[in-house]
């Protein structure tokens, strides 16, 4: 938990949609083990920033670093990727031709070689398995990580408008969360191997532990859609934790909750930080939550970061009061 190495580092990150600049050059450092809040008026670009960090959108400018590794950057030099395909296709057809000459086979073999090799690599480019992404990175082709890559690298998130798998049980929802940390192939499942059974029961145990951590152990078999609203929010947190993240992004975790539920959520966020050692970044409008748990607050307005500091500093910052908090906050709400 040294202050010197931030878990997440945003360097001039921006995202625009056509002419609309949703986020314009945001710099932010999030220290390991801290709780950071991002606040700002509606439409300030908070959720867009989350979407960029979690890989749903590629940034249109800037760079996102996770534990010192580039996570996302505007796509560039992707034309080199096409060169790789071409090179492999040419190699394939040459090999096919050579093999054809050697065994005196039909001339179509070269074509088959080209189709098979380029088809294979094209598929890799479409599916982008992790080895392919790594290969590209090594060859100097940098592309933004997809959401699943981001999860694999240790960032999990929840959504502002709860996005659970509604028909699945609470337990299954959390078990889906373990996906990134389990590795069971098709044939393990088909042959019902020992590895398959062990992994399966391990992720079930883990999911139950997490349900207990958020206080939902009794509702393990209830369909997500039938859970109470506050419990759905907790379930989303449990599901996000199942991927064993280093960084947890919570998008308005206390939205729509009553004061009692909000208190529970505050305790929950603190306890998961302590228990699981995750760094938490949250977007929130409820000032009780923000002021109650944040060590640092960043304020966004019109896609720009207008202030950053401790709750005390933010509360008295005139620009923040102007843009967002209003006069009441300054006098101590």
């Amino acid at each position, binding site marked *: 938990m040294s202050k010197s190495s931030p878990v997440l580092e945003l360097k001039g990150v921006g995202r625009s949609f056509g002419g609309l600049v949703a986020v314009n050059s945001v710099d932010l450092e999030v220290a390991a083990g801290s709780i950071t809040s991002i606040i700002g008026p509606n439409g300030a670009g908070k959720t867009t920033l989350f979407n960029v960090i*979690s*890989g*749903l959108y590629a940034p249109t400018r800037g760079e996102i670093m996770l534990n010192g590794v580039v996570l996302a950057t505007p796509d560039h030099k992707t034309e080199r990727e096409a060169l790789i395909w071409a090179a492999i296709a040419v190699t394939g057809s040459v090999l096919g031709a050579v093999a054809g000459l050697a065994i005196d086979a039909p001339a179509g073999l070269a074509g088959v070689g080209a189709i098979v090799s380029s*088809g294979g690599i*094209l*598929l890799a480019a*479409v*599916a*982008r*398995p992790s080895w392919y992404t790594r290969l590209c990175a090594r060859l100097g082709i940098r592309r933004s990580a*997809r*959401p*699943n890559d981001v*999860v*694999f690298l240790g960032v*999990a*998130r929840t*959504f502002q408008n709860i*996005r*659970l*798998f*509604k*028909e*699945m*049980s609470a*337990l*299954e929802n959390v*078990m*889906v*969360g373990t*996906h*990134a*940390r*389990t590795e*069971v192939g*098709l044939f*393990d*499942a*088909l042959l*019902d191997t020992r590895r*398959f*059974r*062990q*992994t*399966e*029961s391990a*992720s*079930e145990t883990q999911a*139950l532990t997490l349900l207990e951590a958020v206080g939902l152990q009794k509702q*393990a*078999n*209830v*369909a997500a859609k039938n859970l109470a609203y506050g419990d759905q929010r907790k379930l989303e947190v449990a*599901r*996000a934790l*199942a*991927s064993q993240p280093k960084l947890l992004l919570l998008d308005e975790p206390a939205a729509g909750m009553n004061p009692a539920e909000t208190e529970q959520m505050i305790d929950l966020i603190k306890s998961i930080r302590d228990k699981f050692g995750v760094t938490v970044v949250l977007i929130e409008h409820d000032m009780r939550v923000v002021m109650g748990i944040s060590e640092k607050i960043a304020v966004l307005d019109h896609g720009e970061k207008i202030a950053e500091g401790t709750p005390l500093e933010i509360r008295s910052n005139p620009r923040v009061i102007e843009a967002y908090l209003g006069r009441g906050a300054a006098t101590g709400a």
Partner: protein
Amino acid sequence: MMNRMREYLLRHRSLDIVLRLTAIAIVLPLLAATPIFGAFQPFNGWLTGFANAAIFVMLAIGLNIVVGKAGLLDLGFAAFFAIGAYTYAFGASAYSGNDIPFWLMLPIGAIVTAIFGVAIGAPTLRLRGDYLAIVTLGFGEIIPNVLLNSDKYTLGTNGISGLNRPELPIIGAFKSNEPWPWFILAVVLIGLIMIAADRISFSRIGRAWEAIREDELAAASNGINTVTFKLLAFAIGASTAGIAGAFLASKLSFVSPDQFKFSVSVTVLSMLVLGGIGNLWGAAIGAFLLYFVQSILLKQLNEGFKGVPVLGEIDFLQLQYLLFGLALVIMMLRRPGGLFPERRVARHRPGASKQ
């Protein structure tokens, strides 16, 4: 005792499938031997009918993976059926000169159709719902048309005949007038396909599919590579159709493009909706029932109403799609989950997957 047995079978679902299928494989021929069933058609006719129905059961189980589990509406499933059947025709017929045994052609057919599943699935990955349905519909039309028009290789409309039949050491080659071997082979194939489908569905892969079906964006944000898993669903669904295709081709000893028309895709989808999308047994039973309505009941209605005014004038076989349509509308209104809705929750009771 009953409870403990039920508990045991809940944990050993493959055994459950084997037991149920064995029971079905015993009961069906016994039923067919009763006078009531005999009134419709002779015993051997029933047994052949069961084996034919099995083809649709396999197709329905395969489509259930694509549509039911992964939620990818595929209206061109017959394309994979066609590819499986033609793969068999190229691999094991006098026409092609190849003579690969049936038992080897099954996995080959499954692999070839899986590759086509990926190839056809890849361009549709960005599409959802209606758009996906339209594109798959297109592919479903393209494949039979390609087979129809490349008559240099496929003999066009005439189709390829004289395909090899499966052979076994003691009983020799299967014959078209001896339905028992086909019936047993069909049950065994369905058993294998069902066990495979069940095991995959109740694994990390099956959960990933369901997550994609429920909310693709949330699935991706929970670490699921949606591209890979959608392609996998297409591949596995297609390979099932490939096995069904090989079985059909060897059973009829003949393939032609018009066995794989759009109506086949629609029929299989109707079977799925009727039986219960997402439910393995629902898909299988829906397929079985609809096949017999189509092949026997409607024909019998024609016979039965002969001479009766008004009703006797109607050709029920011509009305089959109207009747299917009506049945689907009624199902959607009264029982949207199908006859056997996907059983949710409770199956993952804590400890259910423990060894």
